[in-house]
């Protein structure tokens, strides 16, 4: 079963690599992410699968939003300028790169070590996580407990990504109610259905965040689900009433709080002094990270759609 899906995965990648139309590439990318998500689930990694699914939604939306505004997404738009698209048909040009890649692939396989996987840390984590950090989801325990130092930088990465997106997209003022309403706005069926679905999405996101320590999910996945609620909201109403500057500020403050919380609980070891159950730390941290991810993805999304809108 897993081999079938992995083969599909490879086929999806091949389709993406040899496609030259932007819109098809994006659709294939969505399919590819779906297949990889299923594969992750089959590898026994539901957390990663949820994260990948949430992220694939967002990367597809980013791609579509960004290319629709700037390149246009009519069916014929190629990913290169017309001059360089001309000599694509020449098959001979493809032989050297193919040969080179196959050579590297064979060389790589030749050197793959034969040793079986060493499971030292796996055994340690599985036997110790509920004592050391608490919770029932060992992935969340590692993510927020043992390796919280990594998580701090990961949150920092999101922050850096956001400030760079806001810096590189030119105009700061986005909370303006203008721009032509999307066609969906007039599609009554779509508006109604999305209105029905939105609370469910919001609820699902909150469920993922709050139950992150006992079931698959966590701050990041839940945050992404909540942020997709805002994407739907944009799809229905097409308004720009989100105060971006204020959300950026909120995000920075949340980041500081996350760092301080991690320092207090993990670095100093506060939980050994306080009579609190360990899950309090996990839930608080998940909530904060969820809020941060929601803010971050909303900011990136709105910067993409409001790029160069004065």
């Amino acid at each position: 079963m897993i081999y079938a899906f992995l083969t599909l995965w490879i086929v999806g990648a091949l389709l993406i690599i040899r496609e030259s139309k932007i819109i098809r590439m994006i659709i294939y990318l969505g399919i590819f992410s779906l297949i990889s998500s299923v594969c992750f689930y089959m590898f026994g990694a539901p957390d990663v699968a949820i994260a990948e699914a949430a992220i694939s939604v967002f990367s597809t939306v980013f791609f579509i939003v960004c290319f629709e505004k700037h390149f246009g997404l009519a069916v014929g738009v190629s990913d290169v300028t017309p001059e360089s698209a001309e000599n694509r048909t020449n098959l001979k040009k493809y032989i050297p790169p193919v040969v080179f890649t196959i050579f590297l692939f064979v060389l790589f396989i030749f050197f793959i070590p034969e040793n079986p996987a060493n499971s030292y840390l796996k055994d340690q984590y599985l036997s110790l996580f509920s004592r050391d950090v608490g919770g029932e989801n060992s992935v969340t325990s590692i993510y927020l407990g043992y390796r919280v130092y990594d998580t701090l930088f990961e949150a920092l990465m999101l922050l850096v990504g956001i400030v760079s997106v806001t810096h590189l997209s030119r105009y700061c003022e986005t909370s303006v109610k203008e721009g032509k309403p999307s066609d969906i706005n007039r599609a009554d069926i779509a508006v109604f259905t999305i209105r029905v679905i939105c609370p469910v999405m919001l609820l699902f996101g909150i469920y993922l965040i709050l139950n992150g320590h006992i079931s698959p999910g966590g701050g990041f996945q839940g945050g992404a689900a909540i942020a997709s609620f805002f994407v739907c909201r944009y799809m229905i109403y097409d308004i720009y009433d989100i105060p971006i500057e204020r959300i950026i500020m909120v995000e920075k403050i949340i980041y500081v709080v996350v760092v301080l919380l991690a320092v207090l609980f993990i670095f100093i070891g506060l939980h050994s002094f306080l009579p609190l159950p360990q899950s309090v730390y996990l839930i608080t941290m998940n909530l904060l990270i969820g809020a941060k991810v929601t803010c971050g993805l909303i900011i990136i999304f709105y910067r993409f759609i409001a790029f160069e809108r004065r």
Partner: protein
Amino acid sequence: MVFDIIEIFSVLMFFISFYGLITSKSIIKSVVSILLMESAVIMFFLSIGYTSGIMPPIGQNPETETVADPLPQALMITAIIIGVAVVAVNLIMLISLYRQCKAKDWDAAKKKSME
């Protein structure tokens, strides 16, 4: 040579995306290829210690034998978030470059940026 077949898929994917990198004229496809490359590495990490009928590592005292390794999963969530941040930054650079130089492919971007 004895190795897991499952590993080969990620290696194959790694080099498919490498092929995409060394042949793509367009910047968009390079961005997508990097996405694929990340996906290959993520799949490799998750396939470490795979046996058939593997279970998610959730529950108070999971059976060590049939349970997936939790550490790569925690690492890969981090990697996925980093990936999406990099993609967002790449895309916004791509748009800015396109607006300034009207260049979708590497050669044109190079030529226009040198002026």
